[in-house]
């Protein structure tokens, strides 16, 4: 913390001195501060509907783009996605400092934030139109399933740092808030087609119409077809498949200050996934029972009483001839199975403003998700119902109170099977019988029905013209985690018309996933165990229903400066101290104390009418139980330049740097070298609402590794140089 405070103080002094001289002069000449001018530019892009919905007095935590907001916020607009040659929303997170966005195989996207999440698990809260989309079973997000067509996307607000006092549990390292457009703003038809040189395809069609003066609708469909890529070794990745989705939205103004929205979507995805079987058959190590010996290694050492055959016949079909893994040269075994997912949701929202300025919304959500992780033989159907009420109103001249409550009911129907390689006789000590049907994940008789009740309040207080203080807390009681209080305090101070300082303290919680908490994991088989030397025995570990929530104390400091309306610079520093942090991956789910320190420097510079530069740098350092973590890159940077060659032609250059790290594993840790990605592209905004983009991505590097599910995947997918053609037409 001391380092952060010192660094921050020095930077503040330097930059404040540097900028102070010119600040007053400019502001006096126009009467508008640079922040006000920047807001005017943004307002100019709004249509009448958006203008009529622009709140005059904003509420901290609601209106993310206000310059006094005491939080580190990045907002992604649809054009940030299309102009940078990104296909999905998740790709655009590469332009957000502090976010580590990576690809596994073609359909796998991983996002972690601010060096606190291990390799794959997302420890931040993601909401799409107010609906939480974090999958509690594994603590992950399926970014393809939750994506929406670009034409209906209004914005993605990314709030770095915990926002628990409003957002609640799981908003640990940040919040991603996706907001779609009102149906009135997507009238007519639009088509977006993207074709990559490897055959990957995305098609989106949106149709919007008007039923009456105050009633609008839209429906949309999208299809994403994945072509097969390669693994980093050059082997086929078997990642071809498809993700298809359809949705609708209906908006009606019931009266001048009462709106109704009903929306829903259905998504279906069909892909295959692999389970690495290379290091799952072991030989009992009498010298060190906690370090069993892989069976092939035992064979190489000619240890006594080896099984015959060495590998069960059901297992032999999963061998990959000629391929070895890990430093021990173990023969490679892997099992591919179907991993289908069908997901649907329906939501309804009533919102309004009363005569005494109480702005409120009441939302209801219903979800049905059917997920089958065929490679681990684990499937579940999840039904979920949510009710959410939020409101805010000014109290006098200086206070603005926000409050709300929510209810959730979730129920699961979980099913497990033993996948084909595992169907060989194993002695189960718990039943005293030989079994061939022990699943990898066994949810057993663990609870399948969960309720959650939550409430929050927050008061934003204008202490004076320069200082805004926000105090609040969230209260939760759930079957999963018991009761918790998650307080937060945020303060924003305007040094002058160009400089805002802010600071925050938050306590945030993250629930252990259902797998971590309730699922017995049978991750291997062991031979020659003293319990029954002539038989295979299961190697497993029990889940831990007593796992506490991860509890984080987060301290943040920020400085936001606008030397002119064309340049915005932001620095955010943070220190997180987390108790009971859970890091997934065999052999056990352990809890650790984790300390994470870091910061981001970002800028947005409109150098001229024809040149726009944006970029950021992030640094972070984490220690788990006092040991330095290496699963998150210490340094990352991004730089994007949009140069208008003509009024209708933009040349885009994007650079992304990611530092080196290691994908953790119990037996097969994979070092990922630093990589530099260069994307170049042209976007031609032709007549009659045609937009055509041509991009080359990863131009410096024909292929590199980024990520994989540790200890599930065998090796990372190969992220290859690609060329992409995008065509958008509105009519």
């Amino acid at each position, binding site marked *: 913390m001391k380092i952060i405070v010192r660094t921050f103080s020095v930077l503040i002094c330097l930059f404040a001195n540097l900028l102070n001289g010119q600040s007053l002069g400019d502001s006096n000449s*126009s*009467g*508008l501060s640079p922040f*006000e*001018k920047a*807001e*005017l*530019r943004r*307002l*100019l892009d*709004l*249509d*009448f*509907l958006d*203008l*009529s*919905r*622009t*709140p*005059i*007095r904003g509420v901290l935590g609601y209106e993310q783009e206000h310059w006094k907001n005491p939080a580190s916020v990045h907002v992604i607009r649809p054009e940030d996605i299309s102009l940078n040659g990104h296909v999905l929303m998740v790709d655009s997170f590469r332009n957000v400092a502090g976010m580590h966005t990576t690809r596994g195989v073609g359909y796998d996207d991983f996002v972690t934030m601010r060096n606190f999440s291990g390799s794959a698990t997302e420890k931040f809260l993601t909401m799409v139109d107010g609906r939480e989309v974090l999958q509690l079973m594994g603590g992950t997000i399926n970014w393809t399933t939750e994506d929406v067509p670009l034409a209906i996307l209004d914005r993605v607000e990314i709030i770095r740092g915990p926002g628990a006092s409003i957002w609640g549990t799981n908003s640990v390292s940040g919040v991603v808030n996706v907001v779609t457009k009102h149906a*009135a703003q997507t009238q007519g038809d639009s088509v977006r087609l993207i074709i990559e040189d490897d055959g990957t395809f995305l098609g989106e069609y949106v149709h919007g119409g008007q039923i009456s*003066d*105050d009633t609008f609708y839209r429906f949309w469909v999208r299809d994403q077809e994945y072509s097969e890529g390669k693994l980093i070794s050059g082997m086929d990745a078997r990642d071809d498949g498809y993700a298809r989705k359809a949705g609708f939205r209906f908006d009606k*103004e019931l009266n*001048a*200050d009462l709106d109704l929205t009903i929306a829903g979507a259905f998504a279906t995805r069909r892909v295959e996934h692999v389970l690495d079987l290379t290091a799952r058959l072991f030989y009992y190590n009498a010298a060190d029972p906690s370090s069993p010996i892989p069976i092939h290694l035992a064979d190489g050492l000619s240890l006594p009483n080896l099984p015959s055959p060495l590998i069960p016949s059901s297992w032999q079909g999963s061998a990959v001839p000629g391929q070895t893994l890990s430093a021990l040269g173990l023969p490679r075994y892997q099992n591919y199975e179907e991993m289908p997912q069908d997901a649907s949701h329906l939501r309804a929202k009533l919102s309004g*403003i*009363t*005569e005494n*300025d109480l*702005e409120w919304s009441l939302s209801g959500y219903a979800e049905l998700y059917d997920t089958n992780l065929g490679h681990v033989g684990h499937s579940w159907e999840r039904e979920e119902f949510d009710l959410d009420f939020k409101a805010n109103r*000014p109290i006098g*001249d*200086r206070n603005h109170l926000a409050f709300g409550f929510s209810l959730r009911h979730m129920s699961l129907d979980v099913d497990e099977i033993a996948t084909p390689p595992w169907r060989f006789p194993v002695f189960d000590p718990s039943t005293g019988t030989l079994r061939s049907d022990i699943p990898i994940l066994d949810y057993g008789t663990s609870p399948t029905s969960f309720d959650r009740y939550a409430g929050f309040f927050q008061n934003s207080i*204008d202490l004076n*013209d320069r200082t805004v203080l926000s105090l609040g807390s969230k209260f939760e009681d759930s079957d999963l985690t018991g009761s918790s209080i998650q307080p937060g305090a945020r303060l924003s101070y305007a040094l002058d018309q160009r400089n805002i300082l802010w600071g925050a303290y938050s306590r945030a919680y993250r629930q252990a996933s259902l797998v971590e908490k309730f699922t017995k994991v049978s991750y291997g088989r062991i031979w020659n165990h003293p319990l029954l030397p002539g038989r295979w025995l299961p190697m497993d570990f029990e889940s831990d229903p007593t796992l506490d929530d991860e509890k984080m104390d987060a301290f943040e400091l920020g400085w936001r400066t606008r030397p002119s309306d064309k340049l915005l610079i932001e620095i955010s520093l943070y220190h997180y101290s987390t108790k009971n942090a859970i890091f997934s991956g065999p052999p056990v789910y352990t809890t650790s104390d984790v300390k994470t320190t870091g910061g981001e420097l970002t800028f947005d510079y409109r150098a001229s009418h024809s040149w726009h530069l944006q970029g950021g740098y992030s640094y972070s350092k984490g220690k788990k139980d006092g040991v330095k973590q290496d699963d998150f890159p210490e340094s990352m940077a991004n730089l994007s330049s949009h140069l208008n060659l003509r009024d209708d032609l933009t040349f885009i250059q994007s650079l992304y740097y990611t530092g080196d790290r290691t994908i953790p594993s119990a037996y097969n840790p994979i070092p990922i070298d630093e990589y530099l990605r260069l994307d170049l592209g042209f976007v031609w905004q032709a007549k009659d609402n045609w937009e055509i983009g041509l991009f080359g991505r990863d131009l410096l590097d024909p292929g590199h590794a980024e990520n994989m599910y540790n200890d599930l995947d065998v090796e990372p997918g190969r992220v290859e140089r690609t060329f992409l053609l995008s065509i958008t037409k509105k009519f």
Partner: protein
Amino acid sequence: MLLSGLTPIAAKNATSDDKRRIGRVQATYLTHLINLTQWNKDHLPTPSQSPKIVILGDKENGFTESLEFLLEQSGIGIGGNKIEILHFRNGDKIKANAALENKPQIVFFLSSSNYDPKKMRELSKHSLFVGNGRKFITELKGDIAFNYSRNRVRLIISKLALTRRSPKLNSQISRLRSVVEIIP
């Protein structure tokens, strides 16, 4: 005060930050409205003169500066020409009257204005009159009014401004019934 109706009640409780934001939102609305308004050739200045927006009332919320900035940024003009903004405080009545006699294209009454829109209308019948509050339309014969209530700024438009020949608001505005209130 004769024209206290120009100031919506809610705006009186607004903080200085709120008032400046109201000014920015109003200026943005007006910038869009210029694009949606048609003037007959007779109601436009000669090619050698700039079209004009006259703003009346004491400065209070950065509206004038916001409008200047938005017009410069957007390049929006009237009849293809750059717009000149003239601002007259409440004490500048003689100069303001003279400016209106030159037939400006738009006259905007700040909420602090004590100018009488009815009298000003007699000086410039073919200007688009924009002001604040419902009464500006219903009692003071204005064309467009901004109404700040329930933490939002919304538009109220006289039907006459949609139906007369000049200055005439584009009928596409009348289709935005969910955001614009049209008063017959």
